[in-house]
């Protein structure tokens, strides 16, 4: 039985003491740099064919990034709280994650120190717990590594699974978006004895055991201290309905899936049974009540962040009642459950399945208290290299017509007439956003999910280029930066008319000007009580909650403010 009681924090904590010494999990070789070395700027400029103006912007971008790096960072413990307060070494610790939904790393646009998540930090957390603290870890992920579909999502899914294998995961389930990738192409390249893919409701080619397992039984510790944990996964009814038709995949409802795997679970006689459900809390609870053989039930689809504690699932009885764990979104947190043998309960007499265990729970913020793992950094470099090799076409990105049917001219053309606005623009980071991506380690300007907000002429939220939009420094140098037309709209025809290259009647000339006009309304902004107008809505396409969580239009606007035709 899992006994529960309130755990009061004590002021002195082991974790807190360790955090005072610096970032956790720093590898002997140190951490990978966020920026390229200064000496690499010129070779990079040559490699990506930056013209002289772009090289100057690259230098400015680099200086701005360096200045940011040099700033003092907020204390993550103060911000997000201490962790593992007075935990003794557990006999086993369940590390539970899920819903990474594409976030191999936090975006970083708002400063990595202000964002949580990423495989680099997750790996460091595991290395600290497993390698430094010697905790016996059982690691599982409830699925949904990616968020979108298409070639980039397929590549990302593959890197995610390979990264989880390198981190040491024992079991990884599926979400519906995972199944929209070429799963068959992935699984044939994973060694059968190493693949962590686990699901009782999703199989590949007739639940071929070389590709995935219905059940994993993981043993950690040795001798009398050994702990056996059985892990399975099902997809909730709603997620199952979201999966794409495919004759390579086998899909079973949760009830069908568990009916097939329950005999295996019973035969395993593990100390603790874990069910990962790719579904929300209510689905997970319903399945747990229906199949009352689990000690821990993971809801893989859920809220933004995990709750502060696990919750007992009413109506379940095994081991005193199954406990529900939620994992949050975007890999910002890992949940760690420490398991301890209850010696007193064991002494009292015969224990029923699931009984005889005490537990602690910790939601672990993957903030910058954790170092960047060099191994995961290397994966990220390889991922970016693969995107670069395929280029836009290989990533299935074909330019689409802009909704206005107009084409882009580039900000420098606007500057011919709108001189005052240009003088503001060229002093803001918007001017060098493309080169900001070039200066990163690794460069991200060949990543559609990054460039879509860092150059002119892409759909910012759907990551595809518009016709006449940014292609590369070599092909479209005039479209660098987050330029005028990303807010005002494509202006090639307007510019041609104004510069006398195209004759139109007065009505069309006026209409072209009017179409690009954008006016900030009174009290326009994105905070409560402010007017959500067209201008701020444009900003929010890139300054969204993921990439710019502190964005406040009324605070940011004065920095880029420009008015009137000049």
């Amino acid at each position, binding site marked *: 039985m899992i*006994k*529960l*009681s*309130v*755990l*009061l*924090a*004590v*002021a*002195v904590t*082991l974790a807190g*003491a*360790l955090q005072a010494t610096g970032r956790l999990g720093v590898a002997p070789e140190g951490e990978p740099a966020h920026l390229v070395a200064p000496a690499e700027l010129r070779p990079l400029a040559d490699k990506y064919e930056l013209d002289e103006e772009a090289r100057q912007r690259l230098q400015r971008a680099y200086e701005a990034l360096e200045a940011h790096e040099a700033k003092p960072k907020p204390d993550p413990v103060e*911000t*997000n*709280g201490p962790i593992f307060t*007075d*935990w*003794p*070494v557990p006999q086993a610790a369940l590390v539970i994650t899920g819903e990474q939904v594409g976030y191999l790393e936090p975006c970083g646009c708002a400063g990595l120190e202000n964002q949580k998540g990423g495989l680099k930090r997750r790996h460091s957390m595991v290395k600290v717990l497993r390698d*430094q*603290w010697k905790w016996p870890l059982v690691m599982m992920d409830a699925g949904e590594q990616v968020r979108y*579909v*298409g*070639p980039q999502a397929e590549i990302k899914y593959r890197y995610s699974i390979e990264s989880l294998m390198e981190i040491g995961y024992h079991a990884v389930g599926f979400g519906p978006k995972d199944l*929209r990738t*070429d799963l*068959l*192409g992935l699984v*044939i*390249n994973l060694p059968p004895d190493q693949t962590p893919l686990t699901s009782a409701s999703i199989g590949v080619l007739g639940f071929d055991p070389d590709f995935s397992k219905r059940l994993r039984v993981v043993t950690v510790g040795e001798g009398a201290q050994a702990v056996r944990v059985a892990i399975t996964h099902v997809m909730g009814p709603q997620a199952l*309905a*979201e999966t*794409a038709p*495919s*004759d390579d995949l086998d899909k079973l409802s949760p009830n069908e899936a568990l009916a097939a795997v329950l005999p295996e679970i019973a035969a395993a006689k593990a100390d603790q049974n874990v069910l990962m459900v790719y579904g*929300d809390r209510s689905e997970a609870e319903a399945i747990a009540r229906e199949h009352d053989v689990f000690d821990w039930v993971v809801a893989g689809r*859920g*809220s*933004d*962040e995990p*709750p502060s504690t696990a919750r007992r699932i009413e109506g379940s009885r095994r081991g005193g009642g199954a406990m529900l764990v939620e994992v*949050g979104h975007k890999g910002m947190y890992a949940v760690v459950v*420490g398991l*301890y043998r*209850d010696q*007193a309960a064991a002494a009292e007499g015969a224990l029923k399945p699931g009984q005889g265990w*005490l537990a*602690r*729970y910790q939601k672990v913020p993957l903030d910058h208290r954790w170092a960047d793992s060099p191994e995961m950094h290397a994966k990220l470099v*390889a991922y970016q*290299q*693969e995107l670069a090799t*395929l280029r836009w076409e*290989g990533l*299935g990105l*074909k330019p*689409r017509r802009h909704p206005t049917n107009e084409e882009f001219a580039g900000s420098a053309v606007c500057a011919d007439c709108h001189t005052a606005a240009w003088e503001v623009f060229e002093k803001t980071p918007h001017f060098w956003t493309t080169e900001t991506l070039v200066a990163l380690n690794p460069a991200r300007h060949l990543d559609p999910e990054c460039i879509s907000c860092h150059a002119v002429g892409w759909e910012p939220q759907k990551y595809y280029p518009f016709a006449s939009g940014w292609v590369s420094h070599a092909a479209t140098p005039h479209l660098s930066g987050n330029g005028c037309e990303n807010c005002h709209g494509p202006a090639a025809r307007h510019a041609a008319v104004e510069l006398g290259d195209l004759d139109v009647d007065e009505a069309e000339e006026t209409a072209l000007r009017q179409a690009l006009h954008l006016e900030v309304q009174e009290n326009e902004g994105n905070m*409560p009580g402010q007017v959500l107008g067209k201008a701020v809505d444009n900003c929010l396409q890139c300054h969204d*909650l993921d990439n710019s969580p502190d964005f406040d239009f009324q605070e940011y606007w004065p920095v880029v403010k420009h008015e009137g035709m000049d």
Partner: protein
Amino acid sequence: MRSLLLVVLFSAAVGAGAGTWLALLDVGEVTNDFMPSADLAAGPVISDAEPLAGAPSVREAPAPRVKVDDAAYDFGTMARGATETHQFVFTNVGTEPLRLEVGATSCKCTLGNVETGEIMPGESSPVRLEWVAKVNPGPFRQTATVLTNDPRQPRVELSVEGQVTEVTGMQPREFLLGVLGSGDAASASIYLGAYKDEPLEVSAQMAPGSRNPERFQVNVTPVEPATAPIDGATAVVRIDVKAGPGLPLGGMTEWVEIKTSLAKAPLLQAPILAVVQGDISLHGRGWSKEAGVLNLGTISAAEGKEAQLLVSFKGEHASGATAEVVEVDPPWLIAELGEPKRLSDTKTHLPLTIRVPTGQKPVLRNDTAQSDGDARVLLRTNHPETPEVDVRVRFILTQ
């Protein structure tokens, strides 16, 4: 170093013991958190930790003590964009004045009534949390931390949770055609609903800029709300997309433009997602069906590289399908076909291994001007309509 370790061990044991003892002493067994029994061993051995000063003497000293009525509140269902507030009641059950200040919030929560002065022993004060549901539909949980001068609970994490619903119900949010053959037709539907008796008129068509719009049919049909998968809607339409046959091979994302009479959603877009395969398709790590190329990346000549692919035959000619390697470029590139695996009458898989052997000279094989072009492996098959499969291979072989 050894003395440091001993201090850490001692401190860990004392710290853990103190926390455990206090918990048992003060509250006994309840049902919302965990702790191990009191006789557990010391905490983890952390060799690089700072020495600890010892366990705090929080039991004896007069101190404020914070108690919150319920630190987690469920807002239930919220419409997207709606604002909700909740008041958490903080009570000082200690013996010294309690002070509160705002800590970190996870998102767009706004905390009010904090830092309004001291809460005297025995007194209570409400803390107001406001949240605007400007997030995607689905479950949410937002947290806000209140810092206190209670030495045993310096941080109180408040959380609100619930479910955000769309102003306009659309279920599912995409037309999911899945994997289909190039000669196949497929269809998918989404449901669009209105709430609170708002009139619903809808038209839908392929979005401007769609490729092959003639391959798609889009229809809108009113349906009975009770039969539609949108809870609470008072009017519902079903939008059907029929696609194919004759869609181009590869991954496909097209968009349907939906115009509605709804005040808050006059124009919506929903993607059509599909992967269109021919009778013969390739699968494997690094295979890009969009580019039709196997991307092996940068390879060290000393290590070489190997890729496992599957050649998948589907359709009426799949049974008994075979292939052979008839050409490789460069000649040292190794391509080997395994035994065919017949999965059904309409599906056969043929393993294909492509290997860049060790010891070759550095070379650039891709589509850049400086290279010799993509490497390639040519397969001959017995499929009557696709007698050859050209597998292009892209890599950079370095020293």
